[in-house]
């Protein structure tokens, strides 16, 4: 009805969660997928030549199919982002706000200290996602609960300085550059946007979760990792300002009513409706703060299918996915493992 936008001023705008159907139809593929490696807090994946590297807390490790993960380098702070340039340069960002290329510190613009994703474009330019001006990467929950939109995307052309490409983004967490611009996942707004020529245009909106990192697929499409589902209870808390700040002031961060990389590990965690387990069966559809979800996007960025680990699964907190030697490799931060899936296209 034409009056609805006016009426919404009085009755409140409906905050709705899109259903997990169509391309997002639930399955248990991630829980059935073979484990490539057990790795505590497996976070960011990158392929350096024919080597598969992953970050795990403060450690950079190399993943091999027939051997346990081998530590490559250890850092003073947790690794927050990895990127490999076509020329073999390895770029690493840390939670203390530093960035290095092959071990050499890189000067960063003022205010850039929360690097959530790095990626090299086809022209050799380095793209950088700064999650928030207000928190480090480890403070992501606080950034969400404060409902900040203080993130930015930067580009550094070869031999030049970083230039800001987009500002006021709500936790940019994934980058997929191409010749013209860059596709960016905006977690707190549950959308993918395209940053191009100084403009930000939504490409895929109303995702049913919090999008994380992006990776190119061989057919010209993309892979998107989603680390947590949207949830009615969390949506309600996000609308209740007074309650939210009270919770942030008085409850330990691990037990906030907020998305998480993993859940169900402590009885102190918030429960919704109490209906998680009935007659000894952990219900796959019970409300959860975490999930594993990897989405395949067609070249036009429409979702085509998805791989899930649902409330009754363990491979949650999927933060990173890449194609490596014809297989899909997924890092499940909450599941403390790296998975490898067959090509399902």
């Amino acid at each position, binding site marked *: 009805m034409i009056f609805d936008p006016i009426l919404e001023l009085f009755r409140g705008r409906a905050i709705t969660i899109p259903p997990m*159907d169509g391309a997002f139809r639930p399955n248990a593929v991630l829980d059935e997928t073979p484990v490539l490696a057990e790795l505590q807090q497996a976070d960011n994946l990158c392929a350096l030549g024919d080597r598969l590297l992953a970050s795990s807390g403060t450690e950079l490790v190399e993943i091999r199919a027939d051997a346990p993960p081998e530590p490559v380098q250890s850092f003073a702070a947790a690794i927050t982002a990895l990127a490999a340039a076509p020329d073999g340069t390895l770029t690493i960002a840390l939670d203390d706000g530093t960035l290095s290329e092959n071990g050499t510190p890189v000067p960063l613009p003022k205010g850039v200290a929360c690097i959530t994703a790095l990626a090299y474009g086809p022209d050799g330019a380095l793209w950088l996602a700064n999650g928030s001006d207000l928190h480090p990467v480890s403070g992501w929950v606080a950034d969400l609960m404060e409902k900040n939109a203080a993130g930015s995307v930067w580009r550094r052309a070869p031999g030049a300085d970083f230039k800001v490409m987009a500002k006021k983004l709500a936790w940019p967490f994934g980058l997929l550059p191409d010749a013209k611009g860059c596709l960016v996942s905006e977690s707190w707004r549950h959308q993918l946007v395209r940053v191009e020529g100084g403009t930000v245009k939504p490409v895929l909106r109303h995702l049913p979760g919090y999008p994380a990192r992006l990776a190119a697929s061989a057919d010209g499409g993309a892979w998107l990792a989603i680390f947590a589902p949207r949830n009615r209870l969390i949506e309600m808390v996000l609308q209740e300002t007074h309650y939210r700040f009270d919770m942030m002031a008085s409850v330990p961060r691990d037990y906030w009513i907020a998305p998480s990389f993993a859940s169900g590990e402590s009885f102190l965690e918030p429960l919704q409706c109490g209906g998680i387990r009935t007659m000894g069966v952990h219900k796959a559809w019970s409300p959860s703060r975490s999930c594993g979800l990897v989405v395949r996007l067609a070249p036009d960025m429409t979702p085509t299918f998805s791989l899930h680990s649902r409330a009754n699964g363990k491979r949650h907190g999927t933060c990173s996915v890449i194609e490596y030697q014809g297989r899909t490799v997924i890092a499940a931060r909450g599941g403390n493992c790296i998975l490898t899936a067959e090509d399902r296209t």
Partner: protein
Amino acid sequence: MNPVVKMEQITKNYRSVPAVKNVDFDIAAGEIHALLGENGAGKSTLTKVMAGVVSPTSGKLTYLGKEVQFASPNEALHAGIAMVFQETSLVPSMTVAQNLYLGSENFLNRLRGTYISAQQFLQSLNFAVDPTAMVETLGAAKRQMVEIARAVHHKAKVIIFDEPTATLTPEEKRHFFALLRRLKADGVSIVFISHALEEALQISDRITILRDGEKVASGPTSEFDRETIIAAMVGRTLSGEIYRHRDETQLRKPGRKVLSVQDISMGAMVRNTAFSVFEGQITGVFGLIGSGRTETFKIVAGIDKRDFLRGGTITLDDKPVRYYTPAEAVRDGIVYVTEDRKSEGIFETMSIGENLFGGLLAADKEEGFVIRTSDIRALAEEWGKRLNIKTINAEAQVVELSGGNQQKVVIGKGLVQKPRIVIFDEPTRGVDVAAIAEIHQIINELADAGLAVVMVSSYLPEILNLSDRILVCRQGRIVEELSPAEATEEKIMYAAVH
């Protein structure tokens, strides 16, 4: 074995057309005798003769060894034969308790005492019905429960149940079957009419099958299976058409997303439910009674209204819509085929053509200002052929058609509106097996033609065998989506209950 009721060579003619012809039927004490047949086979007529609703044209009725001829249902009831009708015979403006005790009241009644004893009685039957509720406020399932309770309360020796489980949920059916077994143990004879063949095979001791008013088969239940029953009922095998298992490759792939429902709410009935509907696919929706499945789709079709404050979002082709009348939804191509065809689906005393034309009027698709009877007749002829509606003549009133053909008229009334989204609510309730196969074919053809089809059903085999995806509704929201290739009745029921 001394039969409690014995019917010999019963014939009943309506306008010289025999509804039942020389049928022998008997039932022993403490026996459950299933009476099966297609709609129009003569089951209801035969049992109506037994219950004194109609008098036989010829034949002999013996009750407890004596030849009887009941002049009225009341006379049969007092003699000990009660009939639970498919369409309930309760007084809508009275409470449940008053209906239970109707006709057997004391000279002075204390309402409180009536309610307490009704409550105890209903609880003893495991029926969750409030005795103080007005019958007009009850849904179809609860009315059926009251009707059953009334028959049991009259301490009848013979109880005839005509489609007693059509409106009951699987859980309620289990309670009902437990009740039947209890009655049987107490020596009560039960005539059980049902279209659900599994139920007849599960509960009955003996099965009699009628076709075209004649008895075609009768014997102990152990001698029958689904195939033999269907073959006897319709003269051919249909089960392959109705019950087929499909793997993932046989399911239709989703087309374009046409309807997206996000977090719609309506009081306590529909709570933050979210789902999408795709073109070229049958979306099956299963839920127990009270799960909000019907209400959800009535909101989509503009019949019910979602909450004004934070009532959620419905988008049709990515555009938000909020319907205040069903006509708006019809104009946008959304058609709802009701579960209650008698009160919401058809004009009983009108012809098929007039009913179909009513559909056109609702969609604003009739042409010109003058309604021509030739147009109505042409419409009836066209859709009668398309949907294979069987009728004596073109002018026949819809009330004269069998349940299956009435249902086809309801479907036709929706399809003349040229919809894009068709929502079927219990499309085969009270419909015989041959008509079920035909209706399933119609639904499949619609999905094959690219329409978005939603089928709400509480009949699990139908959900499993017709849907391309299954949504399970519980406590006012869609809780789970399953693929028919991997779903089982147990999995669906678990999601619906827990």
